[in-house]
């Protein structure tokens, strides 16, 4: 039986296209300091640090965990780096929580970041390696055919993606940390933005951001003694499957379905749409909201778009998704 894990402090940077005022270390530290302050702690209270970010090629720093050791007050302490590409923010917190749940450490700082302005991420994932299928100019080129298949299969109306893009950008107006604050965002504005990878328009894509997010995790004793009410980790799950193999359901991947099912079982969730109050989900391109609603069990297959259309996923809906503005409004990849 694993031990309980509490989240006793959270912090994030103000996300922006370019944080020219800060070095890479400075960005990571801004989030970490805010989390420590929230937890009423300083560096000496932390036993171990888990750092996450997307591929090393993005900033060109090999072993960023060592590069960041002094900025994260971690000299002489255990420090680990996690890398699972776009999902690394979640995976990093997962690894950190496991260190507490396994009873290895009592207080762990988990921090994830990206400073996309230090290079060109779309370029980084574009190279056409000989004998390998190309990603075709960035993540959008990879996802567009999958989204087209979803639209064809589910018979979703063409404006679902636009609705998601508007909803998440409106949510971001309530979030002072969000990168994009598009005061005048509207269906027309998104619809009239350039088509990049049909059916993905410019304003249906996530931005490219500099930023970091951090949390202080604690054992049960520390959680009970925390200065602010802690959040408890009720369940965690992770599943893998190969990126490409014949017959893979790319629209509704099996790994996602099984991961969600395992998570809900641990947490005692019977009906996710009824049992959850709010969800923050990785939606880098607008159409992934209905697709993930299905994959994560909030809707039946081919029905997820109806939640968007009916406003169920809106801020005032019955299952609000990405009230922060989500990845569509702030995208420091690793975080």
């Amino acid at each position: 039986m694993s031990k309980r894990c509490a989240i006793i402090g959270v912090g994030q940077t103000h996300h922006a296209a370019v944080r020219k005022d800060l070095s890479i270390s400075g960005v990571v530290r801004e989030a970490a300091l805010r989390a420590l302050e929230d937890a009423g702690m300083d560096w000496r209270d932390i036993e171990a640090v888990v750092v996450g970010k997307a591929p090393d090629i993005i900033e060109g720093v090999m072993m960023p965990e060592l590069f960041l050791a002094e900025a994260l007050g971690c000299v002489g302490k255990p420090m680990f780096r996690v890398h699972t590409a776009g999902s690394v923010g979640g995976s990093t917190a997962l690894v950190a929580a496991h260190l507490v749940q396994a009873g290895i450490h009592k207080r762990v700082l988990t921090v994830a970041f990206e400073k996309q302005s230090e290079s060109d991420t779309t370029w980084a994932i574009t190279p056409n390696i000989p004998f390998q299928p190309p990603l075709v100019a960035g993540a959008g080129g990879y996802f567009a055919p999958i989204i087209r298949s979803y639209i064809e299969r589910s018979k979703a109306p063409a404006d679902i993606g636009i609705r998601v893009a508007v909803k998440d950008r409106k949510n971001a107006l309530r979030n002072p940390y969000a990168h994009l604050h598009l005061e005048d965002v509207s269906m027309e504005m998104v619809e009239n933005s350039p088509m990049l990878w049909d059916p993905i328009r410019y304003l249906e894509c996530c931005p490219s951001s500099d930023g970091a997010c951090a949390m202080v995790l604690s054992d049960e004793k520390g959680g009970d003694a925390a200065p602010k009410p802690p959040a408890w980790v009720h369940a965690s799950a992770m599943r893998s499957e190969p990126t490409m193999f014949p017959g893979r359901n790319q629209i509704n991947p099996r790994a996602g379905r099984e991961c969600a099912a395992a998570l809900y079982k641990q947490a005692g969730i019977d009906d996710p749409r009824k049992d959850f109050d709010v969800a923050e989900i990785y939606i880098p391109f607008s159409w992934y909201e209905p697709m993930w609603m299905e994959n994560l069990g909030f809707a039946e297959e081919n029905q997820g778009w109806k939640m968007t259309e009916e406003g169920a996923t809106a801020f005032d809906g019955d299952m609000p998704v990405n009230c922060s503005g989500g990845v569509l409004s702030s995208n420091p990849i690793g975080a």
Partner: protein
Amino acid sequence: MAEEQEPLEILSARHVVEYPYTRSVGAVIGRFLGGLKDKKIEGSLTPSGRVLVPPSEYDPESGASISDFVEVGEAGVVTTWCWVAEPLAKHPFDRPFAWALIRLDGADTALLHAVDAGDSSRMATGMRVKVRWRQQRSGAIGDIECFEAENLGSQDGEIV
């Protein structure tokens, strides 16, 4: 009996990647590099009173943020060195020189830079060296063209 087959050709292909990077140096390193432009060398002062040159954004001992700076001297001591007898194209000189760690007067840590000594017999651990500033400075470590023995005379290079 099976015919002997041609060996299979194993394919390989070349793929050249060029990828641009940008760096924001932050306020601490930015101040150090900016100072070089004005012939000023500043170190960061840690809470325990150590002066780090080149500066660090955060104290390696305590993790504290560093916001205090101390100007250090243009001259200092060679703490260790390595002679480059056959310089390569990317080296700062086309003649033999030394890479050295130099602890400037007032600093507690050493800075890596080149010493233009002419001959390895003129290099020694513990020797005193001073900055030779570049005429055109841009706010980069190369604003220090190199170090040279402190007991050299002025422009004419005579030993005094």
